[in-house]
Protein backbone atom coordinates (compact mmCIF):
# COMPACT_ATOMS: atom_id res chain seq x y z
CA UNK A 1 0.00 0.00 0.00
CA UNK A 2 1.28 3.44 -0.90
CA UNK A 3 -0.91 5.45 1.46
CA UNK A 4 -2.00 7.67 -1.43
CA UNK A 5 -5.66 8.03 -2.31
CA UNK A 6 -7.21 8.08 -5.76
CA UNK A 7 -10.76 8.94 -6.65
CA UNK A 8 -12.04 6.37 -9.11
CA UNK A 9 -15.48 5.86 -10.64
CA UNK A 10 -16.55 2.23 -10.98
CA UNK A 11 -19.18 1.56 -13.63
CA UNK A 12 -20.64 -1.78 -12.61
CA UNK A 13 -22.87 -3.99 -14.77
CA UNK A 14 -26.26 -4.58 -13.19
CA UNK A 15 -28.72 -7.21 -14.35
CA UNK A 16 -31.77 -8.70 -12.73
CA UNK A 17 -33.84 -11.52 -14.21
CA UNK A 18 -36.24 -10.14 -16.76
CA UNK A 19 -34.78 -6.62 -16.61
CA UNK A 20 -32.63 -4.78 -19.13
CA UNK A 21 -28.91 -4.67 -18.25
CA UNK A 22 -27.40 -1.31 -17.30
CA UNK A 23 -24.28 0.14 -15.70
CA UNK A 24 -24.39 1.83 -12.31
CA UNK A 25 -21.66 4.28 -11.28
CA UNK A 26 -20.04 4.42 -7.86
CA UNK A 27 -17.33 6.95 -6.93
CA UNK A 28 -14.84 5.64 -4.41
CA UNK A 29 -11.71 6.91 -2.69
CA UNK A 30 -9.28 4.03 -3.08
CA UNK A 31 -5.66 3.13 -2.54
CA UNK A 32 -4.34 2.48 -6.08
CA UNK A 33 -2.58 -0.66 -4.85
CA UNK A 34 -5.82 -2.19 -3.67
CA UNK A 35 -7.37 -4.83 -5.89
CA UNK A 36 -10.47 -4.51 -8.04
CA UNK A 37 -12.21 -7.11 -5.87
CA UNK A 38 -11.59 -4.90 -2.79
CA UNK A 39 -13.41 -2.06 -4.53
CA UNK A 40 -16.32 -4.33 -5.55
CA UNK A 41 -16.62 -5.55 -1.97
CA UNK A 42 -16.59 -1.96 -0.70
CA UNK A 43 -19.36 -1.03 -3.14
CA UNK A 44 -21.40 -3.94 -1.78
CA UNK A 45 -20.61 -3.15 1.89
CA UNK A 46 -21.08 0.62 1.92
CA UNK A 47 -23.04 1.62 -1.19
CA UNK A 48 -25.33 -1.10 -2.47
CA UNK A 49 -26.09 -4.34 -0.67
CA UNK A 50 -28.06 -5.65 -3.65
CA UNK A 51 -24.94 -6.03 -5.80
CA UNK A 52 -24.15 -9.69 -6.44
CA UNK A 53 -20.70 -11.09 -7.33
CA UNK A 54 -18.65 -14.21 -6.64
CA UNK A 55 -15.45 -14.45 -4.62
CA UNK A 56 -13.78 -16.77 -2.15
CA UNK A 57 -10.05 -17.09 -1.59
CA UNK A 58 -8.73 -13.61 -2.47
CA UNK A 59 -5.39 -15.06 -3.66
CA UNK A 60 -5.99 -16.44 -7.16
CA UNK A 61 -6.52 -20.04 -6.14
CA UNK A 62 -10.29 -20.53 -6.31
CA UNK A 63 -10.96 -18.82 -9.65
CA UNK A 64 -14.31 -17.46 -8.46
CA UNK A 65 -13.79 -13.73 -9.01
CA UNK A 66 -13.23 -13.68 -12.78
CA UNK A 67 -14.80 -10.58 -14.36
CA UNK A 68 -14.13 -8.23 -17.24
CA UNK A 69 -12.28 -5.12 -16.18
CA UNK A 70 -12.35 -2.40 -18.84
CA UNK A 71 -13.34 -5.08 -21.31
CA UNK A 72 -10.51 -7.47 -20.48
CA UNK A 73 -10.88 -10.74 -18.60
CA UNK A 74 -9.19 -10.49 -15.20
CA UNK A 75 -9.02 -12.31 -11.92
CA UNK A 76 -10.11 -9.33 -9.83
CA UNK A 77 -8.41 -10.50 -6.63
CA UNK A 78 -4.98 -10.02 -8.20
CA UNK A 79 -5.68 -7.04 -10.46
CA UNK A 80 -4.60 -3.79 -8.85
CA UNK A 81 -6.61 -0.64 -9.45
CA UNK A 82 -3.36 1.09 -10.49
CA UNK A 83 -2.87 -1.38 -13.36
CA UNK A 84 -6.19 -0.54 -15.03
CA UNK A 85 -6.84 3.17 -14.41
CA UNK A 86 -5.44 6.46 -13.09
CA UNK A 87 -6.43 8.98 -10.44
CA UNK A 88 -9.80 10.45 -11.50
CA UNK A 89 -10.31 7.63 -14.01
CA UNK A 90 -13.11 5.16 -14.61
CA UNK A 91 -13.12 1.38 -14.30
CA UNK A 92 -15.83 -0.57 -16.07
CA UNK A 93 -16.68 -3.93 -14.54
CA UNK A 94 -18.69 -6.51 -16.48
CA UNK A 95 -19.49 -10.20 -16.02
CA UNK A 96 -17.59 -12.80 -18.06
CA UNK A 97 -18.73 -13.27 -21.65
CA UNK A 98 -20.15 -16.52 -23.03
CA UNK A 99 -21.77 -17.59 -19.76
CA UNK A 100 -25.43 -16.81 -19.00
CA UNK A 101 -25.75 -13.99 -16.46
CA UNK A 102 -27.64 -15.05 -13.36
CA UNK A 103 -27.48 -11.69 -11.62
CA UNK A 104 -25.17 -8.66 -11.92
CA UNK A 105 -21.61 -10.04 -12.04
CA UNK A 106 -22.58 -13.65 -11.31
CA UNK A 107 -22.62 -16.02 -14.28
CA UNK A 108 -23.80 -19.61 -14.58
CA UNK A 109 -20.71 -21.82 -14.95
CA UNK A 110 -22.53 -25.11 -14.34
CA UNK A 111 -22.21 -26.39 -17.89
CA UNK A 112 -18.49 -25.56 -17.92
CA UNK A 113 -17.87 -27.41 -14.64
CA UNK A 114 -19.76 -30.46 -15.95
CA UNK A 115 -17.53 -30.51 -19.06
CA UNK A 116 -14.42 -30.23 -16.89
CA UNK A 117 -15.66 -33.12 -14.76
CA UNK A 118 -16.34 -35.23 -17.86
CA UNK A 119 -12.74 -34.74 -18.99
CA UNK A 120 -11.63 -36.32 -15.69
CA UNK A 121 -9.63 -33.24 -14.75
CA UNK A 122 -7.34 -33.83 -11.78
CA UNK A 123 -6.69 -30.68 -9.79
CA UNK A 124 -3.70 -32.44 -8.24
CA UNK A 125 -1.23 -34.30 -10.47
CA UNK A 126 2.30 -35.68 -10.11
CA UNK A 127 4.85 -32.89 -10.12
CA UNK A 128 6.65 -33.89 -13.33
CA UNK A 129 3.36 -33.99 -15.22
CA UNK A 130 1.96 -30.71 -13.89
CA UNK A 131 4.48 -28.71 -15.91
CA UNK A 132 4.27 -27.88 -19.58
CA UNK A 133 7.04 -29.61 -21.55
CA UNK A 134 8.79 -26.33 -22.40
CA UNK A 135 8.95 -25.29 -18.73
CA UNK A 136 11.70 -26.42 -16.39
CA UNK A 137 10.36 -29.08 -14.04
CA UNK A 138 10.20 -28.08 -10.40
CA UNK A 139 12.79 -30.13 -8.49
CA UNK A 140 11.29 -32.62 -6.12
CA UNK A 141 12.02 -32.08 -2.48
CA UNK A 142 14.26 -35.03 -1.68
CA UNK A 143 13.22 -35.39 1.97
CA UNK A 144 9.65 -36.23 0.90
CA UNK A 145 9.31 -40.00 0.84
CA UNK A 146 6.00 -39.87 -1.02
CA UNK A 147 5.69 -38.93 -4.62
CA UNK A 148 5.42 -35.18 -4.80
CA UNK A 149 2.22 -33.66 -6.11
CA UNK A 150 1.07 -30.13 -6.68
CA UNK A 151 -2.04 -28.31 -7.84
CA UNK A 152 -2.43 -28.48 -11.58
CA UNK A 153 -2.52 -24.96 -12.87
CA UNK A 154 -6.09 -24.60 -14.13
CA UNK A 155 -8.25 -22.94 -11.47
CA UNK A 156 -11.42 -23.24 -13.57
CA UNK A 157 -12.00 -19.48 -13.56
CA UNK A 158 -13.52 -19.46 -17.08
CA UNK A 159 -11.54 -16.42 -18.28
CA UNK A 160 -10.32 -18.33 -21.35
CA UNK A 161 -13.87 -19.18 -22.42
CA UNK A 162 -14.95 -15.58 -21.94
CA UNK A 163 -12.07 -14.31 -24.10
CA UNK A 164 -12.42 -16.91 -26.87
CA UNK A 165 -14.05 -15.55 -30.07
CA UNK A 166 -15.05 -19.05 -31.17
CA UNK A 167 -16.88 -19.64 -27.88
CA UNK A 168 -18.75 -16.41 -28.54
CA UNK A 169 -20.87 -17.91 -31.30
CA UNK A 170 -21.07 -21.62 -30.54
CA UNK A 171 -22.57 -22.82 -27.26
CA UNK A 172 -21.64 -26.40 -28.17
CA UNK A 173 -17.91 -25.57 -28.29
CA UNK A 174 -16.34 -27.22 -25.26
CA UNK A 175 -13.82 -24.42 -24.89
CA UNK A 176 -10.12 -23.92 -24.16
CA UNK A 177 -10.10 -24.91 -20.48
CA UNK A 178 -11.80 -28.25 -21.13
CA UNK A 179 -9.53 -28.97 -24.11
CA UNK A 180 -6.49 -28.11 -21.97
CA UNK A 181 -7.79 -30.47 -19.31
CA UNK A 182 -8.27 -33.26 -21.87
CA UNK A 183 -4.69 -32.67 -23.06
CA UNK A 184 -3.33 -32.82 -19.51
CA UNK A 185 -5.18 -36.08 -18.85
CA UNK A 186 -4.11 -37.50 -22.23
CA UNK A 187 -0.43 -36.80 -21.56
CA UNK A 188 -0.73 -38.70 -18.28
CA UNK A 189 -2.75 -41.59 -19.59
CA UNK A 190 -3.55 -41.68 -23.33
CA UNK A 191 -6.94 -43.14 -24.20
CA UNK A 192 -9.32 -43.19 -27.14
CA UNK A 193 -12.10 -41.92 -24.87
CA UNK A 194 -10.18 -38.69 -24.29
CA UNK A 195 -9.48 -38.29 -28.01
CA UNK A 196 -13.19 -38.82 -28.71
CA UNK A 197 -14.02 -35.98 -26.31
CA UNK A 198 -11.77 -33.56 -28.20
CA UNK A 199 -11.64 -34.75 -31.82
CA UNK A 200 -14.83 -33.27 -33.30
CA UNK A 201 -16.08 -30.04 -34.83
CA UNK A 202 -17.15 -28.55 -31.49
CA UNK A 203 -13.89 -29.61 -29.87
CA UNK A 204 -10.31 -29.13 -31.08
CA UNK A 205 -11.32 -28.11 -34.58
CA UNK A 206 -13.57 -25.23 -33.52
CA UNK A 207 -10.52 -23.27 -32.26
CA UNK A 208 -9.59 -20.52 -34.73
CA UNK A 209 -6.16 -19.67 -33.34
CA UNK A 210 -6.87 -16.29 -31.76
CA UNK A 211 -4.73 -17.27 -28.74
CA UNK A 212 -6.83 -15.10 -26.41
CA UNK A 213 -7.15 -18.02 -23.97
CA UNK A 214 -3.42 -18.10 -23.34
CA UNK A 215 -3.29 -14.30 -23.10
CA UNK A 216 -5.87 -14.05 -20.31
CA UNK A 217 -5.08 -17.25 -18.36
CA UNK A 218 -3.99 -16.16 -14.87
CA UNK A 219 -2.35 -19.53 -14.14
CA UNK A 220 -0.06 -20.12 -17.11
CA UNK A 221 -2.00 -23.17 -18.33
CA UNK A 222 -1.36 -22.13 -21.95
CA UNK A 223 -4.55 -23.68 -23.36
CA UNK A 224 -3.68 -22.61 -26.92
CA UNK A 225 -0.42 -24.57 -26.83
CA UNK A 226 -2.26 -27.58 -25.41
CA UNK A 227 -4.93 -27.39 -28.15
CA UNK A 228 -2.27 -27.23 -30.87
CA UNK A 229 -0.28 -30.06 -29.27
CA UNK A 230 -3.41 -32.21 -29.12
CA UNK A 231 -4.08 -31.42 -32.81
CA UNK A 232 -0.52 -32.44 -33.63
CA UNK A 233 -0.98 -35.76 -31.82
CA UNK A 234 -4.29 -36.48 -33.58
CA UNK A 235 -2.98 -35.49 -37.03
CA UNK A 236 0.11 -37.66 -36.37
CA UNK A 237 -2.09 -40.62 -35.43
CA UNK A 238 -4.15 -40.18 -38.61
CA UNK A 239 -1.05 -40.03 -40.82
CA UNK A 240 0.34 -43.13 -39.10
CA UNK A 241 -2.95 -44.98 -39.62
CA UNK A 242 -2.66 -44.41 -43.40
CA UNK A 243 0.61 -46.36 -43.43
CA UNK A 244 -0.52 -49.03 -41.00
CA UNK A 245 -2.30 -52.12 -42.27
CA UNK A 246 -5.49 -53.07 -40.41
CA UNK A 247 -3.93 -56.47 -39.54
CA UNK A 248 -0.97 -54.74 -37.88
CA UNK A 249 -3.42 -52.73 -35.82
CA UNK A 250 -5.02 -55.95 -34.62
CA UNK A 251 -1.62 -57.47 -33.82
CA UNK A 252 -0.56 -54.37 -31.91
CA UNK A 253 -3.84 -54.36 -30.04
Amino acid at each position, binding site marked *: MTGSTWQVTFKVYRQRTGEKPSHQSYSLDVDPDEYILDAVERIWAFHDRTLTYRHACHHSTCGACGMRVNGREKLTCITTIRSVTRNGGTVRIDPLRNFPVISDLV*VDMGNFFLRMEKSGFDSVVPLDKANLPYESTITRVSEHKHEAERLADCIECGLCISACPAANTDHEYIGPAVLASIHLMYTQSPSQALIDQADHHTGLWRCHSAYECTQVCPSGVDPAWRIMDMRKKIIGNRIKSIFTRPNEDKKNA
Partner: protein
Amino acid sequence: MPNQPEAKNWPRWFDPRSRSLGTFGFILNRITALALTLYLILHLIALGQLAQGPAAYDGFIALVKNPLFKLGELLVIAAGVIHGLNGIRIALNSFGIGVRRQRSMFVILMALAVLCIAFFGWKMFMEG
Protein backbone atom coordinates in the same frame (compact mmCIF):
# COMPACT_ATOMS: atom_id res chain seq x y z
CA MET B 1 -30.67 -15.44 -20.42
CA PRO B 2 -28.37 -12.76 -21.91
CA ASN B 3 -24.65 -13.18 -22.51
CA GLN B 4 -24.88 -16.72 -23.88
CA PRO B 5 -22.90 -17.90 -26.91
CA GLU B 6 -25.13 -17.51 -29.96
CA ALA B 7 -24.56 -17.51 -33.72
CA LYS B 8 -26.01 -14.00 -33.92
CA ASN B 9 -23.03 -12.73 -31.87
CA TRP B 10 -20.78 -13.03 -34.95
CA PRO B 11 -20.34 -9.22 -35.38
CA ARG B 12 -18.36 -9.33 -32.12
CA TRP B 13 -15.66 -11.27 -33.99
CA PHE B 14 -14.71 -7.98 -35.62
CA ASP B 15 -14.48 -5.97 -32.40
CA PRO B 16 -10.76 -5.49 -31.70
CA ARG B 17 -11.20 -3.60 -28.40
CA SER B 18 -9.30 -5.08 -25.43
CA ARG B 19 -7.93 -7.85 -27.65
CA SER B 20 -4.42 -9.14 -28.26
CA LEU B 21 -2.42 -9.66 -31.44
CA GLY B 22 -3.87 -13.14 -32.03
CA THR B 23 -7.35 -11.69 -32.44
CA PHE B 24 -6.06 -9.20 -34.99
CA GLY B 25 -4.86 -12.21 -36.99
CA PHE B 26 -8.26 -13.85 -36.49
CA ILE B 27 -10.09 -10.69 -37.65
CA LEU B 28 -7.79 -10.19 -40.65
CA ASN B 29 -8.36 -13.78 -41.76
CA ARG B 30 -12.13 -13.37 -41.64
CA ILE B 31 -12.19 -10.03 -43.47
CA THR B 32 -9.83 -11.26 -46.20
CA ALA B 33 -11.77 -14.52 -46.59
CA LEU B 34 -15.03 -12.59 -47.08
CA ALA B 35 -13.33 -10.20 -49.52
CA LEU B 36 -11.89 -13.10 -51.56
CA THR B 37 -15.27 -14.85 -51.65
CA LEU B 38 -16.91 -11.65 -52.90
CA TYR B 39 -14.17 -11.28 -55.50
CA LEU B 40 -14.70 -14.87 -56.68
CA ILE B 41 -18.38 -14.13 -57.28
CA LEU B 42 -17.55 -10.93 -59.21
CA HIS B 43 -14.90 -12.82 -61.17
CA LEU B 44 -17.40 -15.46 -62.23
CA ILE B 45 -19.87 -12.76 -63.28
CA ALA B 46 -17.10 -11.13 -65.36
CA LEU B 47 -16.26 -14.44 -67.00
CA GLY B 48 -19.94 -14.79 -67.82
CA GLN B 49 -19.47 -11.84 -70.19
CA LEU B 50 -17.58 -14.21 -72.49
CA ALA B 51 -20.86 -15.94 -73.26
CA GLN B 52 -22.34 -12.68 -74.55
CA GLY B 53 -19.84 -12.31 -77.36
CA PRO B 54 -16.55 -10.47 -78.00
CA ALA B 55 -18.06 -6.97 -78.03
CA ALA B 56 -19.55 -7.29 -74.55
CA TYR B 57 -16.31 -8.76 -73.23
CA ASP B 58 -14.16 -6.01 -74.79
CA GLY B 59 -16.45 -3.40 -73.25
CA PHE B 60 -16.02 -4.97 -69.85
CA ILE B 61 -12.22 -5.11 -70.22
CA ALA B 62 -12.17 -1.42 -71.12
CA LEU B 63 -14.13 -0.68 -67.95
CA VAL B 64 -11.73 -2.58 -65.65
CA LYS B 65 -8.73 -0.64 -66.97
CA ASN B 66 -10.05 2.28 -64.91
CA PRO B 67 -7.60 3.15 -62.01
CA LEU B 68 -10.36 2.46 -59.47
CA PHE B 69 -10.60 -1.12 -60.71
CA LYS B 70 -6.80 -1.35 -60.52
CA LEU B 71 -7.01 -0.34 -56.87
CA GLY B 72 -9.62 -3.05 -56.43
CA GLU B 73 -7.26 -5.57 -58.00
CA LEU B 74 -4.52 -4.49 -55.61
CA LEU B 75 -6.93 -5.03 -52.71
CA VAL B 76 -7.61 -8.55 -54.02
CA ILE B 77 -3.86 -9.22 -54.11
CA ALA B 78 -3.53 -7.78 -50.59
CA ALA B 79 -6.36 -10.02 -49.33
CA GLY B 80 -4.79 -13.08 -51.00
CA VAL B 81 -1.33 -12.39 -49.61
CA ILE B 82 -2.54 -11.62 -46.08
CA HIS B 83 -4.91 -14.61 -45.99
CA GLY B 84 -2.32 -16.96 -47.46
CA LEU B 85 0.56 -15.97 -45.18
CA ASN B 86 -1.65 -15.89 -42.08
CA GLY B 87 -3.02 -19.28 -43.12
CA ILE B 88 0.50 -20.69 -43.29
CA ARG B 89 1.07 -19.54 -39.69
CA ILE B 90 -2.16 -21.19 -38.52
CA ALA B 91 -1.42 -24.41 -40.43
CA LEU B 92 2.10 -24.61 -38.97
CA ASN B 93 0.72 -23.97 -35.49
CA SER B 94 -1.83 -26.75 -35.96
CA PHE B 95 1.05 -29.12 -36.64
CA GLY B 96 2.58 -27.95 -33.35
CA ILE B 97 5.21 -25.82 -35.10
CA GLY B 98 6.00 -22.38 -33.70
CA VAL B 99 3.03 -22.19 -31.32
CA ARG B 100 5.10 -20.41 -28.68
CA ARG B 101 6.36 -18.03 -31.37
CA GLN B 102 3.01 -17.34 -33.03
CA ARG B 103 3.10 -13.59 -32.22
CA SER B 104 6.53 -13.13 -33.76
CA MET B 105 5.47 -15.27 -36.72
CA PHE B 106 2.40 -13.07 -37.21
CA VAL B 107 4.44 -9.85 -37.14
CA ILE B 108 7.09 -11.21 -39.55
CA LEU B 109 4.54 -12.65 -41.99
CA MET B 110 2.44 -9.48 -41.99
CA ALA B 111 5.59 -7.40 -42.60
CA LEU B 112 6.28 -9.72 -45.53
CA ALA B 113 2.69 -9.20 -46.72
CA VAL B 114 3.17 -5.40 -46.64
CA LEU B 115 6.35 -5.75 -48.75
CA CYS B 116 4.54 -7.98 -51.25
CA ILE B 117 1.60 -5.57 -51.51
CA ALA B 118 3.99 -2.62 -51.99
CA PHE B 119 5.83 -4.56 -54.73
CA PHE B 120 2.63 -5.37 -56.61
CA GLY B 121 1.37 -1.80 -56.11
CA TRP B 122 4.58 -0.49 -57.64
CA LYS B 123 4.32 -2.89 -60.56
CA MET B 124 0.67 -2.06 -61.24
CA PHE B 125 0.67 1.70 -60.84
CA MET B 126 4.21 2.77 -61.68
CA GLU B 127 5.17 0.30 -64.37
CA GLY B 128 1.81 -0.97 -65.60
